[in-house]
C-alpha cells in the first residue's frame, strides 16, 4: 500500500515536470509543425542558468524565497533570448524546407547548445539545493517527501490552466488556434503568421527552460542530463498527440506513472517500457491519442 502511494507520488512529480517541458514542445509543433529537438537545449540552459544564479544568490546571503524569482527569471530570459535567436538565425531560413530537414537543423542547434554549456559552465556539476532545503519536507501517509517537489504540481497545473486560458479565452490564443487549424486559411484572412511563429516559439522555449530551471534544485546539473528528458518528452508528445495540450497532460501522466512503476518494480525496464508504449500508440493511432482530427487534402 505504502509502495503504491510512493509510486503514485513519484509518478505525479515526474509527470508534472514532463508536462511542463512537453507542453512547450507540443505548442511549437502544433503551430509551426516543427519537431523541436533544440528543446532539450532550452531545458539544459534553463537548468544551468537557474543553478548558477541560485548558487550566487545564496553566497551573497539573499533570502531563500529569492530563488523562486531566479527560477522564473532564468526561464523567461533563457526562453526569450534563445527563442528569438534561433527563430531568427535558423528557423526563418527553413520554413519552406521539408519537415525532416527542419528536425535535423534543430538537432544541430541542440548539439551546439550542449557544447556551449560545456564551454561556458564547464564540466563540473552544479548544485542548487537551497530552495529545496528551505521548504523542508512533509510526511504523507507514512512517507516523507520534500515540499519543493510537491510545489511542482502547482506549477504544472498553472501551466495547464494558463495555456488553456490563453488558447481559448484570449485574442492571441484564438489566432493561434486558427493557425493550428489551417495555416494557409489563416494567412488569407490576414493573420500575421510569421509573428505568431515568433511568439509561439518563444513561449514554447520559456516552458522548456522553466522545466529545467524548476528541476535544477532537485538534481545535480551536469553535462548531458537533458538527453533523457528530451527523449521522454518526445514520447509524451507522440503518445498524447502532437500539438495537443490535453494530450501532453495525459501523455505526461501515463509516462510519469509508468516510469515510476518501472523504477520501483522493474528498474531494468524503465526506458524499454516507455518506448514500448510509444511504439504501441504509434502503431494503433499514428497521430497520437489526442491529436485533433484533420481533413485530408489532395
Amino acid at each position, binding site marked *: 500500500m505504502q509502495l503504491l502511494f510512493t509510486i503514485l507520488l513519484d509518478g505525479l512529480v515526474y509527470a508534472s515536470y514532463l508536462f511542463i517541458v512537453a507542453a512547450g514542445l507540443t505548442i511549437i509543433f502544433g503551430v509551426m509543425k516543427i519537431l523541436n529537438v533544440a528543446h532539450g537545449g532550452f531545458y539544459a540552459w534553463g537548468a544551468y542558468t537557474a543553478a548558477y544564479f541560485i548558487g550566487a544568490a545564496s553566497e551573497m546571503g539573499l533570502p531563500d524565497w529569492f530563488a523562486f524569482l531566479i527560477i522564473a527569471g532564468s526561464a523567461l530570459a533563457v526562453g526569450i533570448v534563445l527563442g528569438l535567436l534561433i527563430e531568427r538565425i535558423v528557423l526563418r531560413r527553413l520554413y519552406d524546407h521539408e519537415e525532416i530537414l527542419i528536425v535535423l537543423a534543430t538537432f*544541430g542547434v541542440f548539439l*551546439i547548445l550542449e*557544447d556551449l554549456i560545456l564551454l561556458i559552465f564547464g564540466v563540473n556539476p552544479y548544485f542548487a539545493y537551497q530552495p529545496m532545503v528551505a521548504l523542508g519536507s512533509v510526511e504523507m501517509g507514512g512517507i516523507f517527501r520534500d515540499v519543493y517537489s510537491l510545489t511542482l504540481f502547482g506549477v504544472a497545473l498553472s501551466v495547464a490552466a494558463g495555456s488553456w486560458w490563453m488558447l481559448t479565452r484570449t485574442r492571441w490564443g484564438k489566432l493561434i488556434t486558427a493557425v493550428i487549424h489551417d495555416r494557409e486559411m489563416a494567412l488569407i484572412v490576414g493573420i500575421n503568421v510569421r509573428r505568431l511563429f515568433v511568439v509561439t516559439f518563444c513561449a514554447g522555449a520559456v516552458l522548456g527552460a522553466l522545466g529545467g530551471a524548476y528541476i535544477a534544485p532537485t538534481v545535480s546539473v551536469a553535462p548531458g542530463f537533458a538527453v533523457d528528458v528530451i527523449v521522454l518528452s518526445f514520447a509524451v508528445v507522440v503518445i498524447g498527440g502532437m500539438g495537443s495540450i490535453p494530450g501532453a497532460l495525459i501523455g505526461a501522466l501515463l509516462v510519469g506513472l509508468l516510469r515510476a512503476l518501472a523504477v520501483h518494480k522493474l528498474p531494468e525496464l524503465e526506458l524499454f517500457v516507455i518506448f514500448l508504449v510509444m511504439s504501441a500508440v504509434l502503431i494503433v493511432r499514428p497521430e497520437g491519442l489526442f491529436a485533433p482530427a484533420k481533413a485530408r487534402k489532395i
Partner: protein
Amino acid sequence: MLHAILSDKTVRLTALALLALAAAGLMLPAWVVNNMMFGLARGAAVLGLLVLWRTGLMSFGHGLYFGLGAYAVALSEHWLGLSDFALRILAAILVAVVAGFALGFILRRYRDIFFAMLSLAFSMVLYGILVKTEALGSTDGFSVSQTTFLGWAPEGKQVLFTAIITVCLALAVLVQMYLRSTLGRLTTAIRDNEIRVEYLGYSVARAIHIKYVISAALAGGAGGMMAMALGQVDPDSMVYWTVSGELVFITIMAGPGSVLAPFIGAIIFEFLRTYAFEIAPHAWQLIVGGTLLLIIFFLPGGIWSLLERIPFFRRLRHD
C-alpha cells in the same frame, strides 16, 4: 545485364575508387586502415539511409539494423562458433532482412517525422532488450574474435580491409542497379506525389516496403562489418540512438547524389572525429551541429554536390 552493369559510369568509378583504396591499404599505417574500415562499414549503412532519403523518408533508428547485424556476428560466434567472413556477413544481412521485412509491414504506412520517430522507438526497444538481457551480453556486449577466410586466419588487418572493400563494392553496385530499375526510379516519383504513382498502377506501400528491406539489409551488413573491424559489440556503440543520429548526419553531409557519396562522407566523418578529439575534445558536438546547419543552409546536396561542380562527376548524374 552484365553489360549494363559494366557500362554504368558510377559503377566503374566506384570500382576504381575502392580498388585504389585496397591497394593503398597495403601501404597505409594501421590506424588509417582502421579508420577506413569503420568509415566503409558506416558508409554501407548510410547507403541504406540514402535509399530511403531519396524518397524523402529518414529513419532516426537505423541503429536497430546496424546493431542486429553486429549482434548477429557476435552471437553466431558465441553460440555456433562461426568466424568465417562470408558466413558472418550473410548472418548479419539475413537477420536484418527478416527484422526489416516484419517491421516494414508497420512502417510502410508512415511518412515524415512519424516514420522517423517510430523507427527511433523500435531501435530503442531493441536497445532496452540488449542492455537488460544477460544472455545477450547486457551493457558489456561481446568481443568478436578474429575473422577467418575459409579457415585461413591472416595476420594484420589488410585482408579484412580488402574483404570489406569488396563487400562495399558489391553493395554499391547492387544499389546502383536497384536505383536504375523501374522500382528504383519510382523512388523520386513517390517523393513527389504518391497519389499519382498509385494512379499509374504501382503500389506505393509495396515499393516502400521493398526499399525499407533493402535499407535494413545494408545497415545489417554494415553492422556486421563494423563488428568485425572493431572486434567488439555493445549496445551503446551499435544500437543507441546516437549511432542512428551519426548515420543520419553522414547521410545529410554526404548528400543523396550518388552511391559513392555515403562512403566518401563516412570516411571523412571518421577522420574528422579522430582529429576533432585530438584538437578540441569538448567541441565535437559543436562541430557536428555546426556542420549540419551549414550543410542544410548552404549545401543541400551535401559534399557530393561540391564534387558535381567538376564536369567529370556531373556527367555521372545523367548516366
